[in-house]
């Protein structure tokens, strides 16, 4: 009974909240608007925005030397998480069946293990850093911890459910993923989408001035 609910209506509901919520948040930001810049440009805003969108994937030297732990942990976590999300065999099958209607090559078991190790090492290091470093401890709020906890639990239950031999574990993983989808648009997890706007706006402003940001 509960399993059917998690597998059926709750999945549809959580996915709807996620999709509508993300679109709503992005539209809400864009709707506030930005005043037209009347200064004479030196360079191209569009090119600046495009450049910043990609250049900020590569850290500036100040960060590579002074924020090395966060940098390494950040890469480990994000790369591991995206590899798991998109290329884990159960995910490929699930997305193909429920959303896209087609599948793509999944990663082998050993790659899953490596990706999971990366993601776990990354999120644990980042969380410890958040708790122990005076700067991040000062900045962090409840939202940061709820988001991290939810992602961690989704990853943990996913690994436990990997063999797909024990249905309750699969349902637990799905339930946690659904909670994450519902929480997502109301949280800092939105940075997964809004980074395009923030990088784009800054890149455009700096691009007008002729600065590669």
């Amino acid at each position, binding site marked *: 009974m509960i399993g059917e609910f998690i597998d059926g209506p709750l999945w549809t509901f959580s996915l709807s909240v996620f999709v509508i919520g993300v679109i709503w*948040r992005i539209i*809400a*930001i*864009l*709707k*506030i*608007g*930005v*005043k037209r*810049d*009347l*200064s*004479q440009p*030196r*360079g191209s805003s569009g090119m600046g925005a495009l450049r*910043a*969108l990609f250049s*900020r994937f590569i*850290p*500036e*030297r*100040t*960060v590579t030397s*002074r*924020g090395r732990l*966060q940098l390494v942990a*950040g890469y480990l976590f994000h790369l591991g998480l995206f590899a798991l999300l998109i290329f884990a065999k159960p995910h490929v099958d699930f997305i193909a069946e429920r959303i896209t209607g087609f599948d793509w090559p999944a990663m082998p078991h050993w790659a899953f293990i490596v990706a999971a190790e990366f993601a776990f090492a990354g999120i644990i290091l980042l969380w410890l850093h*958040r708790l122990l*470093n*005076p*700067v*991040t*401890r*000062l*900045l*962090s*709020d409840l*939202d*940061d911890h709820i988001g991290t906890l939810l992602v961690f639990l989704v990853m943990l239950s996913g690994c436990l459910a990997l063999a797909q031999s024990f249905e309750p574990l699969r349902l637990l993983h799905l339930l946690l993923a659904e909670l994450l989808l519902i929480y997502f648009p*109301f949280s*800092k997890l*939105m*940075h997964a989408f*809004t*980074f395009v*706007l*923030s*990088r*784009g*706006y*800054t*890149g455009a*402003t*700096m691009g007008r*001035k*002729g*600065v*590669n*940001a």
Partner: protein
Amino acid sequence: MSEAFEQGVAALSAQIDAKVASYFSSCIHCGLCAEACLFYTETHDPRYTPIHKLEPMKKLWRQEHTFWGKLGKAMGLSKPLSEADFADWERLVYDSCTLCGRCSMVCPVGNDITYMIRKTREGFSVAGYAPDGMKEATQRALTIGSPMGVTYKTLSAAIANVEKETGLHIPVDQPGVDYMTIFSSMEIVNFPEFIEALARIFKQAGVTWTISSKAYEATNSGIQIGNKEAAAELVGRVVNAAEELGVKYVISPECGHAYTAIRWEGPNLIGRPYQFEVVHILELLDQLKAQGRIQVKDFDHTPMTLHDPCQIVRRGGVIQPPRNLLNSVADHFVEMKDHGVMNWCCGGGGGVSANERAEELRLEVFKRKKSQLDELGVNTLVTACANCRIILEEGLEHYEMDTEVISLTELLAEHLVTDKPS
């Protein structure tokens, strides 16, 4: 709750645009911006983390633009922005930020934190939470015409001295010429040799130029304190004078934030594009040099390095011209490890130099520039901002460093081939 505070909150709220909303939505509190800020790196005080300086604005954004914030406010669960917030953050917003923009260059999600601090100051200044030194400087700028109280009489005396020294005529209120120059008060009072350098260079290059007796001040205290009405008034004076004289260009002098004020913020402050172009003195000199209109002689063999003024280089985009010019007169020019758009601030920008109570902190964070210079082992520092120059000189003196600070324009003038016959 005072009326001024309510107006300040309204002013702060009005500053929240789509950029700000996207920045706060994207910030995941990684704290990496701290590593780019000299106020944090030199003190290790986490309160100086750039994004932390924006807590009041973030609180307002959350309450007005997010689901949880609106819910919390409606249910009385979250406290509204209070006067105590403004009082607690005033020093962080004004004393420990030079608007240098270094944090904005390293944020992984691309947040322009400096843009938000500049905007936060708009709310704070309306509410009355701004340093006395900056309030007084702004008042002097509006009433006397200069934040340092420099009147045209003072400039006129400086002009007369330069004319006497050089034998050159300095044109004042000359309509129909190509260029109108403006100066920072510090150049007029502390470094009149800059005016002399300009006169000599323009003479050789055959540049037609003038000074306006109505608008000679480039410094814009309104930008620094965050008062857009005052900033618009000060920019408007220059724009009116330039358009009355019918010049093609206004030259922004060796002053960092003056360039940001007239070049980038000005048209937006007065609500229209100019009928002239703004050119920074370094851009103009580089152009004249490239056109062969300035000719220099004798390389200086002294090892030199360049201090990039933040508002001219990182926030202004004038990156290569100072390097071209310096290389044309010095054959031992070496860059600091962090240079160009990633150079470290002198510590006195963004109005900090006009804020007496921030002096101790400013000198403390000067250790960053000191370590840059110590690492390089060079005793001559070239720059192109009168404010940086004063702050650098004070910092060097405080740390008893034997380093000379010189102006790039003045250095170039020293190397001019004797004036061509006109």
